[in-house]
């Protein structure tokens, strides 16, 4: 019987080629979108789930209160690990991981930049990065040891055994390779090319036991059977015991499975994070698939008259309703199967672009039987969803009616097919409105005054001997006319690397814990960055040598400190006095979507990592860069001339929103495309069934225009209803989305007007092709066919 079902399904596919193509192509696009989204989601939820001890691994988080607001963050004092180990009996061991940094690495005549993380010796016991060569127990014990990943080892040593070989890092450290581990997989938060032992950091004097310096990540491995709740209870007020400067607040241990997907806290409560995107895209994937399934449902039921006779005959000769439901489901599963094959091809073709776009490396493991089983299950599910309603609908025909020719389709005002079209276009319109609002929000933030001049401004990290030779570099850049201004800063202008609630000033309330962004700059910062000075003056060490202990405040800082006359005020930070010499307008250090924070810019006594310099506009950029490279190569010969244009760095702040906008646009486009395919199919069918009516109308004097509008009107009505349904939903959703931004655009009426116009135009174009074709046909033909 099954064979018979598939046989007839195949013949129907071939007989109605147009409908079959629309069904298969629509479903394939829907399925391909769903598969890509599924791949992305499964990649996201697989993050750091490969560690064998994953059930016992936790990350230590700070929890503190600032001016009545509770904050949670995961950078911790270096000293925390040993305190956890000694005070919390539930903990078996701890391991710290510093932020990865680039090191110039040399072996023989090979020189590469290597991304290194400094970790405790227990790192490889806690986390599962399989050791390929060397001794796992002692690999990270020796301060002069280094662990390489397999690909880094291959880069430096080829096929030779690297164990015991000596590497030179940053032209001053000699380290011996103690082990080789597998490259960290793409779905791990730990991305490194080599591991340096914590003992190395200690040997350089970089370790500290200051509880106020939150500078590393601390991980804990619980003892088997221990409860994290009991450990967390002990950590709640942990600072009280150790942190004399700030005895409030504490820590908590956060489980590995929530790192990637959650890790976002509001008022100390876990809220949102990546999981929100997972949820959004799960819904979007399901909707696109459903929209494709709706096409199948609509076209199948629209064709019902053609299948009615067959249903009647089958019933007369003994078919039960369940036989017929089985047959129709078999047909939809067959179509889903063909669409499934096409969708795999589509996925394979689009996967590289998808990976570039998402910055991931997801792939389909074709050797995994589970992947095939999932694919088969997916096809079955799609076939069942798409086929359920038509199967139910078609199998219900009464043979006495359909065989006598008294069978008529229902022409009620609300029929399921119309409801389904409305549903499709409602989704599409919501997505179009969302796309427009997201784009509007990005434009809004892009047009926001960032507070400095990004034009021809570059930064370069003080690597190698650049820091030592800073003055020479600066002089040559200025004297050769490459740059008009040069300033050394603690961090790039587009990144805030340091903040503190420890600033002191006259009149500060004892319980005031205002968080200040902390930035350092040596000279002419206002000039180099192109900031707007409100009061006072810029750093000028030549004229005012005392400026090394001077500070600039932004307007928010002046407000937070309550200064009516800020110039000349003395503030305290890191046990040092700083005299306020100027006030600048707030500039955007972090997100262009967020409010600017109070900020202090400390003078030459601060710490420095970056050179900012503004290119001389009288020369071409390429000449300036070529000459600048010569200077940097002269004073820092081992390092490549890696520079960043500030305007590009600033533009990257919009990347996440832009991706979101592009995804919304992509999905809106796909939804519209699939929905229009369905609409086209329905219009084709309607034109065919009203062939005779059109002929009669034409004979009676109807014009092409009136017939076109007659046929298109019904569909446009549905799109209009969809628009009315979708608009308030989209408004609520986008209003909710915008709430996440402090600096946000408004949702204007034109967004809705444009969307309405766009969707009606697309629908009109889709249906009118068929309508016009029907309208211009010769009426003699349709009337003769009677």
């Amino acid at each position, binding site marked *: *019987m099954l064979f*018979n079902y598939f*046989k*007839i399904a195949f*013949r*129907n596919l071939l*007989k109605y080629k147009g409908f079959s193509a629309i069904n298969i192509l629509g479903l394939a696009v829907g399925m391909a979108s769903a598969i890509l989204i599924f791949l992305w989601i499964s990649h996201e939820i697989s993050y750091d789930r490969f560690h064998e001890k994953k059930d016992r691994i936790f990350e230590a988080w700070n929890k503190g209160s600032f001016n009545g607001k509770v904050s949670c963050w995961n950078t911790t004092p270096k000293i925390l690990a040993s305190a956890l180990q000694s005070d919390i009996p539930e903990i078996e061991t701890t391991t710290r991981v510093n932020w990865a940094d680039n090191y110039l690495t040399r072996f023989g005549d090979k020189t590469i930049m290597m991304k290194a993380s400094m970790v405790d010796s227990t790192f490889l016991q806690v986390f599962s990065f399989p050791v390929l060569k060397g001794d796992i127990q002692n690999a990270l014990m020796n301060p002069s040891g280094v662990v390489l990943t397999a690909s880094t080892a291959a880069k430096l040593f080829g096929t030779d055994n690297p164990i015991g070989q000596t590497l030179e890092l940053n032209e001053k450290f000699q380290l011996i390779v103690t082990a080789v581990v597998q490259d960290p997989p793409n779905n791990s938060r730990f991305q490194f090319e080599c591991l340096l032992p914590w003992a190395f950091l200690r040997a350089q004097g970089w370790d500290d036991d200051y509880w106020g310096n939150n500078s590393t990540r601390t991980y804990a491995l619980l003892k088997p059977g221990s409860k994290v709740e009991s450990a967390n209870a002990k950590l709640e007020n942990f600072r009280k015991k150790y942190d004399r400067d700030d005895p409030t607040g504490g820590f908590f241990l956060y489980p590995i499975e929530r790192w990637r997907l959650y890790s976002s806290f509001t008022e100390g409560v876990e809220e949102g994070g990546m999981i929100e995107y997972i949820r959004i895209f799960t819904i979007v994937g399901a909707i696109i698939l459903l929209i494709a399934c709706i096409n199948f449902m609509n076209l199948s039921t629209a064709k019902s008259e053609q299948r009615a*006779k*067959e249903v*009647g*005959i*089958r*019933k*007369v*000769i*003994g*078919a*039960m*309703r369940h*036989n017929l439901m089985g047959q129709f489901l078999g047909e939809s599963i067959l179509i889903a199967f063909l669409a499934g094959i096409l969708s795999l091809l589509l996925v394979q073709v689009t996967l590289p672009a998808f990976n570039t776009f998402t910055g991931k490396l997801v792939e389909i493991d074709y050797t995994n039987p589970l992947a095939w089983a999932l694919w088969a299950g997916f096809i079955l599910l799609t076939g069942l969803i798409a086929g359920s309603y038509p199967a139910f609908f078609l199998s219900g025909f009464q*043979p*006495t009616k359909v*065989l*006598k020719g008294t069978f008529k389709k229902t022409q009620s005002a609300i029929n399921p097919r119309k409801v389904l079209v409305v549903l499709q276009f409602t989704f599409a319109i919501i997505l179009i409105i969302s796309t427009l609002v997201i784009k509007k929000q990005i434009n809004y933030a892009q047009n926001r005054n960032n507070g400095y001049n990004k034009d021809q401004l570059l930064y370069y990290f003080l690597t190698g001997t650049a820091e030592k030779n800073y003055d020479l570099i600066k002089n040559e850049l200025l004297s050769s006319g490459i740059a008009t201004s040069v300033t050394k800063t603690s961090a790039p202008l587009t990144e805030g690397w340091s903040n503190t609630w420890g600033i002191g000033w006259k009149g500060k309330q004892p319980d005031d814990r205002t968080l200040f962004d902390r930035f350092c700059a040596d000279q002419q910062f206002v000039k180099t960055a192109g900031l707007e000075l409100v009061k006072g003056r810029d750093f000028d060490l030549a004229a005012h040598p005392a400026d090394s202990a001077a500070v600039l405040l932004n307007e928010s800082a002046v407000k937070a400190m309550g200064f009516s006359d800020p110039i000349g005020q003395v503030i305290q930070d890191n046990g040092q006095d700083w005299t306020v010499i100027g006030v600048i307008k707030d500039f955007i250090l972090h997100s262009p979507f967020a409010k600017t924070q109070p900020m202090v810019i400390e003078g030459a006594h601060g710490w420095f990592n970056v050179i900012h310099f503004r290119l001389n506009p009288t020369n071409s950029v390429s000449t300036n860069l070529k000459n600048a490279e010569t200077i940097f190569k002269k004073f820092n010969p081992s390092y490549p001339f890696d520079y960043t244009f500030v305007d590009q760095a600033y533009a990257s702040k919009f990347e996440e929103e832009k991706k979101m906008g592009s995804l919304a646009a992509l999905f809106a486009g796909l939804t519209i495309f699939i929905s229009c395919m369905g609409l086209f199919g329905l219009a084709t069918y309607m034109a065919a069934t009203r062939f005779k009516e059109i002929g009669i109308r034409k004979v009676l004097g109807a014009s092409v225009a009136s017939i076109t509008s007659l046929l298109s009107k019904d569909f446009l009505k549905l799109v209009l209803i969809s628009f009315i349904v979708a608009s308030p939903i989209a408004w609520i959703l986008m209003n909710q989305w915008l709430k996440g931004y402090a600096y946000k655009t408004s949702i204007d009426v034109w967004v809705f007007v444009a969307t309405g116009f766009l969707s009606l135009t697309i629908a009109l174009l889709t249906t009118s092709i068929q309508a016009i074709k029907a309208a211009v046909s010769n009426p003699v033909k349709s009337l003769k066919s009677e």
Partner: protein
Amino acid sequence: MIKISNLEKIYRTEEVETVALNKLSLEVKEGEFVAIMGPSGCGKSTLLNILGLLDDPDAGSFLFNGIEVAGFNERKRADLRKHNIGFVFQSFNLIDELTVYENVELPLIYTGVKPAERKKIVEDVLDKMVIMHRRNHYPQQLSGGQQQRVAVARAVVNNPKLILADEPTGNLDSSNGNEVMQLLTDLNEQGTTIIMVTHSEHDARYSHRIVRMLDGQTVMENIMV
């Protein structure tokens, strides 16, 4: 074989109530060939639908082989139908997407006959109906007479006790029509009971008895000699 008494069927729409069968009684014995005649709208087709277990009467009794089937649910009716009744329609009602062979095979599939056995039975029937040479053709490739022969083949393939024919020659020219009537007569002679609705006095003459209907009732019976 069939005994119906006081059978009623009323069709209702919002505004109109149409009495299709009005306390109709009729008996058909096994092996009989009965023709039912009457003007359009007299209830012939309704009667045939009820006799064919495609429809359910509103009132009255319907004994099929001594079993009361009025009030059977669809599942029971379908089960009884597929084992006992074959249908022949005016418009042939073949499935366009299936070949001659596959159309005839279909009832056997629904009654669960094994493929090897099916092949034998279908080929036998196609042989008998002299349509074997067209076994791989699709209905639209056949003449009307050939299509009706296929329909008759499909009706008899399950070896039904009863064949219901609804104007079987209505769409055929006289020579093809006669051929089909001869087929039905042969089947009847081999023991199959036949009830045929027809407008054609000529066709009705092939039967043993003509039942004439008007307004949902039988008004006259003619025994053919």
